[in-house]
């Protein structure tokens, strides 16, 4: 272990230090870190991870390093050290916002008490005597220095002063073993601070405009909207640092470095290269279709095709690949997939290819592959029928929990192929239908008792020929089968007319007349029906029992036949282990019985590519996959999805030159004059990029780049590219600039307002309408209308997603390693949906402008099938992946506090953690953030001698000297959550003790009572917290002292309206916090 960092070093550990280590530690290897003991103190914000790490340094190591500690500390042992740093930690939090002292509580005794002169004569000597020895420039205990405090009302000192007030008034500082000030001295100091704070909130604060960088996601969205380029080139950018409030758009925490600028240059260069084409060149377009269906291919490939171990390829005759030429309004070059290959490596069967082998067949280049985990609970995972390929929902395989079976889900269809375009957009068109399916009954089911049956038709089966049966009435039939005596379990393949069913069938032990093994429920029409039962040597008869409409089975069937399978397309690459398939767009419900075409679009470089050289000598190398699935939600019975064909086209161009090119090379009368046209292009582009009109000086600077380049190369495209490259790396593009000419607050200019609004509400650049309103000088007046319009725009989702995730720290759920044995339902796919739940919930509240109290307590959840099923409410919805409000009827659900994604994210994946949950609630919901975990507090170690519950360990931690203070502001908020386990569900064990005494002495029995308390008694505080986070996010910085006071006091205006969500956002936008710079 390296030396314990000095206090100074600690202080310097700003959030974006060592971001490389953190990036990889958190992002790549988070899976591996399991701490031995219980980490109770890790409530630190994401932004202060490094401090959290230090917090875990063990007691033993602290002991061995006491030599390096300050004089008075080294006298005492760990306990004192811990306590002291912890108490000082209160002050360390100075930049964070806590409750300002309520106005009017303390009447100032006259203006003379405030001000610099008074400070110098009365206060400074006091500080010097009692504080400065430990809190000076060289010796910043807990990162606090008080030598800079002056009589001036500097904002950066006000939060600090407020904390000093608390410390001094409560006699917590100076530490008990230090020289203590007299009671009178304490009074003088506290009185001075109180008056200073009151005076501060009354003054006009200096404003200096703002210059902040676009966040990574803002940059990505802006580039996409500006260029019309869907490829995401921003993967190389390091993630933005997280501010104390949890936001990544805080100008103070944003890094800028030479490397970041170089990355911007590289990204801009790549982007422009992708956007700008040679107009006269013919684009190359790859287009092919794979048709599926039993015996669809009259001339199948004669070879025994194998794509690695367990390749599960469809039969050669069931697959037909056709290379196509799309119809286009421009000339292009059709891409012909390569069929001639020579390989020396790779599997053939289970042996290695040795020696060069030549191939020349499209079916060695394009495969129809079903490789996935084997088995299916009921029926076959997939089957080809004459009309196409039938797919059951693809059950995620155990790979999600790291078992050895890693082939992907069950029913995992993929077009596996050697070649796809290198870049550009693509379209995958899938012809699919909902199969007119039957509901397979559980293995071993017996045909129905006569009560539920209206009529029965039986027919003897023949081993050789189809049997004709006449159905007399339309209805839901249970199809059963009677057996020869002593028949064995067998796979049954049953054709009823054109429809096909198959599955394992278990004969009844003692067959009786008219009774049989129930196999499937189907809806049949009256008339003749041809029945073929294959592998039926043991079968004697088939039994059709028409069910009463109101029988349980009939009802089940009616629900079943209404369901719509979800069609999904994926793109990735083949590998022998694990799956790389990533989703293309959203899943699409397929409700029609007739074939329809579903189009999925994406940019090829946003998906995993094999990164294999073109001349790779391995048969299996570089295989790409287009996955097509019937998507799995929660395992409910689902009619099968029929896939008829899959067509690929890419790079997909609507026009030529493509829109990305025409966005830049605009129409202009000057097209034939290189210099004049370059000026037009550059001016137009720069104005769009800068989100405002550009000045002549700016235009001249960029045109000069063109001139320079053009003079040298005579290459118009390249020279324009050079000029645009400079535009895209300029601060005017990369920064959001609010220019200020005086220290006084000034109104935003119209274009600054347009950008501020759009980056707040869309997380991207302003659109044409916003800019037009701004140019016309009408934006300030039409704020309400624009707000309304912006919330209805799809881009508003970008705000909801970003803000909710950051405010509620949903990233914690992304990285938590779930104990799969304890929480088997919390699979990776379920996690993905639960992660989305808080976002969808907030979206719903905002959309309907519902009162904020719903955030705490609501009689509905907003869920899709996966999420509802996780809460055991799966039977209340049939919405597929769409999030819809559902009345939960469960006293333990509703609001965000009981959402699994939040609760599980605030655990270690194994046990619930009241400390994390308490700190989160204090921080996020009531804006009373606890201090950062102080450095050097030992981790509680399990020495194994005692078996303690987490709660007992927590108590021990809380009672430990030095821990009590902080935890008094944390644990009471976290303990009521104890009724919820680390998977975020209500614990089954009723003995859990969740009683808690809140800091204001209110007693609550459990989370429900805490919710009531928050929603009824403390809703002003919750509203303030929401406003504070919202405003901080909106302006991209930490709020000033006065702004915090403003929100707290003026936010109450909204109470009369019930603190409605849109009203609160509007309140922020219309406040000076937002409108002034």
């Amino acid at each position: 272990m390296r030396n314990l960092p000095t206090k100074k070093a600690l202080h310097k550990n700003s959030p974006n230090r060592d971001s490389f280590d953190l990036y990889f530690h958190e992002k790549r290897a988070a899976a591996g870190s399991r701490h031995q003991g219980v980490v109770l103190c890790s409530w630190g914000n994401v932004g202060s991870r490094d401090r959290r790490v230090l917090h875990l340094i063990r007691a033993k190591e602290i002991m061995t390093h006491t030599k390096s500690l300050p004089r008075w500390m080294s006298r005492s042992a760990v306990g004192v050290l811990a306590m002291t740093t912890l108490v000082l930690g209160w002050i360390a939090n100075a930049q964070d916002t806590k409750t300002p002292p309520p106005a009017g509580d303390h009447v100032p005794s006259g203006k003379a008490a405030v001000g610099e002169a008074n400070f110098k004569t009365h206060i400074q000597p006091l500080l010097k005597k009692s504080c400065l020895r430990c809190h000076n420039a060289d010796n910043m205990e807990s990162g606090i220095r008080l030598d800079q405090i002056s009589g001036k009302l500097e904002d950066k000192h006000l939060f600090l002063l407020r904390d000093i007030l608390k410390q001094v008034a409560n006699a917590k500082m100076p530490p008990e073993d230090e020289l203590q000030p007299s009671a009178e001295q304490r009074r003088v100091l506290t009185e001075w601070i109180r008056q200073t704070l009151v005076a501060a909130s009354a003054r006009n604060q200096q404003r200096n405009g703002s210059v902040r960088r676009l966040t990574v996601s803002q940059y990505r969205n802006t580039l996409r909207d500006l260029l019309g380029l869907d490829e995401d080139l921003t993967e190389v950018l390091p993630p933005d640092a997280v501010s104390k409030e949890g936001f990544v758009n805080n100008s103070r925490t944003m890094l800028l470095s030479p490397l970041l600028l170089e990355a911007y240059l590289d990204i801009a260069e790549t982007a422009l290269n992708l956007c700008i084409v040679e107009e006269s060149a013919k684009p190359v377009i790859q287009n092919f279709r794979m048709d599926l269906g039993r015996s669809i291919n009259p001339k199948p490939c004669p070879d025994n095709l194998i794509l690695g171990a367990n390749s599960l390829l469809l039969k050669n005759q069931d697959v037909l690949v056709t290379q196509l030429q799309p119809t286009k309004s421009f000339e292009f070059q059709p891409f012909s997939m390569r069929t001639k290959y020579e390989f020396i490596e790779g599997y053939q069967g289970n042996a290695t290819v040795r020696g060069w082998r030549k191939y020349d067949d499209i079916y060695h280049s394009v495969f129809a592959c079903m490789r996935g985990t084997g088995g299916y609970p009921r029926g076959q995972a997939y089957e080809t029928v004459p009309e196409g390929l039938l797919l059951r929902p693809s059950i995620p395989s155990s790979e999600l929990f790291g078992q050895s079976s890693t082939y992907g889900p069950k029913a995992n269809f993929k077009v596996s192929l050697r070649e796809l375009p290198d870049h550009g957009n693509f379209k995958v068109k899938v012809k699919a239908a909902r199969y007119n399916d039957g509901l397979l009954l559980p293995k071993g089911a017996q045909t129905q008792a006569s009560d539920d049956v209206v009529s029965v038709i039986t027919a003897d089966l023949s081993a050789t020929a189809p049997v004709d049966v006449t159905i007399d009435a339309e209805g839901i039939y249970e199809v059963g089968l009677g057996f020869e005596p002593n028949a064995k379990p067998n796979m049954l393949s049953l054709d009823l007319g054109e429809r096909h069913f198959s599955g394992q069938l278990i004969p009844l032990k003692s067959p009786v007349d008219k009774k049989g093994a129930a196999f499937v429920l189907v809806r049949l029409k009256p008339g003749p029906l041809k029945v073929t039962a294959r592998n039926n040597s043991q079968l004697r008869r088939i039994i059709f029992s028409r069910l009463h409409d109101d029988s349980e089975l009939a009802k089940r069937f009616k629900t079943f036949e209404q369901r719509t399978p979800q069609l999904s397309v994926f793109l990735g690459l083949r590998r022998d282990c694990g799956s790389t398939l990533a989703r293309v767009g959203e899943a699409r419900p397929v409700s029609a019985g007739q074939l329809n075409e579903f189009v999925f679009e994406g940019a090829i470089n946003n998906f995993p590519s094999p990164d294999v050289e073109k001349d790779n000598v391995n048969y299996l190398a570089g295989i790409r996959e287009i996955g097509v699935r019937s998507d799995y939600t929660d395992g409910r019975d689902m009619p099968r999805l029929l896939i008829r064909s899959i067509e690929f086209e890419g790079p997909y161009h609507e026009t030529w030159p493509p829109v990305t090119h025409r966005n830049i090379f605009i129409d202009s009368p000057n097209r034939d004059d290189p210099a004049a046209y370059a000026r037009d292009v550059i001016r137009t582009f720069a104005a769009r990029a800068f989100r405002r009109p550009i000045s002549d000086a700016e235009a001249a600077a960029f045109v000069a780049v063109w001139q320079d380049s053009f003079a040298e190369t005579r290459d118009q495209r390249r020279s324009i590219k050079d000029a645009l490259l400079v535009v895209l790396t300029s601060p005017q593009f990369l920064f959001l600039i609010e220019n200020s000419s005086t220290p006084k607050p000034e109104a935003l200019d119209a274009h600054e307002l347009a950008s501020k609004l759009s980056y707040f509400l869309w997380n991207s650049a302003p659109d044409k309408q916003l800019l037009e309103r701004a140019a016309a000088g009408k934006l300030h007046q039409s704020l309400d209308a624009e707000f309304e319009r912006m919330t209805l725009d799809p881009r508003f989702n970008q705000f909801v997603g970003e803000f909710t995730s950051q405010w509620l720290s949903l990233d914690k759920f992304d990285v938590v390693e779930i104990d799969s044995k304890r929480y088997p339902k919390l699979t990776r796919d379920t996690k993905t949906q639960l992660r989305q739940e808080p976002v969808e919930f907030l979206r719903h509240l905002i959309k309907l402008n519902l009162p904020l109290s719903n955030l705490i307590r609501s009689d509905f959840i907003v869920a899709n099938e996966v999420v509802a099923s996780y809460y055991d409410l799966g039977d209340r919805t049939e919405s597929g992946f769409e999030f819809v409000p559902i009345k939960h009827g469960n006293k333990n659900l509703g609001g965000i506090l009981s959402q699994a994604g939040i609760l599980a994210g605030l655990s270690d994946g194994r046990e619930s953690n009241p400390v994390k949950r308490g700190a989160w609630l204090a921080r996020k919901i009531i804006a009373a953030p606890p201090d950062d975990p102080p450095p050097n507090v030992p981790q509680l170690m399990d020495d194994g001698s005692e078996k303690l519950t987490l709660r007992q360990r927590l108590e021990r931690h809380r009672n430990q000297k030095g821990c009590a203070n902080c935890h008094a502001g944390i644990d009471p908020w976290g303990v009521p959550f104890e009724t919820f386990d680390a998977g975020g569900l209500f614990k089954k064990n009723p003995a859990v003790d969740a009683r808690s005494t809140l800091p204001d002495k209110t007693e609550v029995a459990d989370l429900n009572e805490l919710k009531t308390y928050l929603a009824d008694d403390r809703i002003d505080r919750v509203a303030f917290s929401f406003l504070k986070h919202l405003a901080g996010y909106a302006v991209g910085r930490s709020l000033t002292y006065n702004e915090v006071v403003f929100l707290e006091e003026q936010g109450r205006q909204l109470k009369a309206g019930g603190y409605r969500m849109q009203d609160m956002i509007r309140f922020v936008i219309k406040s000076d916090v937002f409108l002034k710079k």
Partner: protein
Amino acid sequence: MASFTRLDRRSVLKGIAGTTLSLPLLEAMGQDISQKNPKRFCALYTANGMSLPNPKHGIQDWSWFPKNTGKDFVYSKSTAPLSPFRKQLSFMGGLYHANGPKADPHVCSDMWLTGAPLHDSKPGTYNSVALDQVVALHTKQYCRQPSLVLSIDAGVGFLSRTGTISYNLEGKPIPAENNPRRVFDRLFRGDQASLESQRSRLKRRIKLVDAVLENARSLNKRLGKSDREKMDQYLTSLNELESRLTASEKWIDIPIKKQNYSHLDLDVTSEGEPREYYRNMFDLIALAFDADITRSVAFMLNREDGMGISDTFPLKLGLGRTHHNLSHAGDSQGQLAFAKYDLFLSEQLAYFFGRLNESKDASGTVLDNSIVLFGSGASTTHNPTNLPTLIAGGANMGLRHGSYWQKSKTPMSNVYLSILRSMGIERNSFSDSTGVIRDSIFSAV
């Protein structure tokens, strides 16, 4: 090579983002190694594990791991050629990758140098960064090439049957080179055309950065009373970027150290005699280290699961079966033949160590200033525990050698973290590491 330049920016970007690299770059890059010892790393991977014969065959002295742990270890017959280097190397036993057993058995080569959980990669992700690339991040500013990635087969193989052990910061495979002549030409004979195109690329870049800088300065003047902190950072960063580009441009003209190349036979290929091939590749590494062309090397000596040309090497050496086949042998004859292939590899290693000892740094030999890691992702094939591992050199980085270190279930990533720390690369973790190896080999962690 394209992949290197790409790595170059990415790596530094992620590596030192947020801190300013303010060292006088040119000076640092061209520093005189006669005054300061470089810190180097070389990873050598052999596939399919080692021969650990079944005791019933009575050929235990052919088992790869030494007899006796600690200082009194006795070389097995298959590692005996390494005897002269006893004071410069250590064997390590009991190591494993926690994520190894969960995946397909031959994926071990993909994750040997990364430790990544390949069995549970999230859709859309690949591998994670390999040790040599983390080293390169921190050594690249001192040498011409961030790293050198070699393999018996060129390219990357394919995911799960990799042909390279080096993965970049995004976890994407870095294509390996396998042709001695190409490696030599690239490293030692920067050809004029490519140098010129590199130069003109840099010149253009510098021009554009100048234009950006000019525009930014004039914007800065117009900013009135606005908060300038971000603009200052921006201008400083841009200035720094410009000076780095200028430095890179100057690198092109700094001549390479004069060395004797007469022993090289650049006509050998992987399809010829294995011994000749390995020796020339090792010669190239030794020369590249000596001339400070790179300080990070990864070399995949052979491939898993019967892939590639190396599977045939035991056949060429008269051992009767292919490499993968031998690794599955249960019979006495097969296990002995497998051990003799291990012996062959030990001879090549011994040659390499000898070469590294022939060149001197400011103090000690090149080997004393290079940590060489040799091992496999399986003890024998399909067995991902007790990874055979040998670590050599690095005396000047605090490595204390001459023993067989053994501790069961020690995360391999802990060894990797220990290597990084020994090289002065301050990281808190690597992959799934849980700490460093403290008690013996690594004395400076």
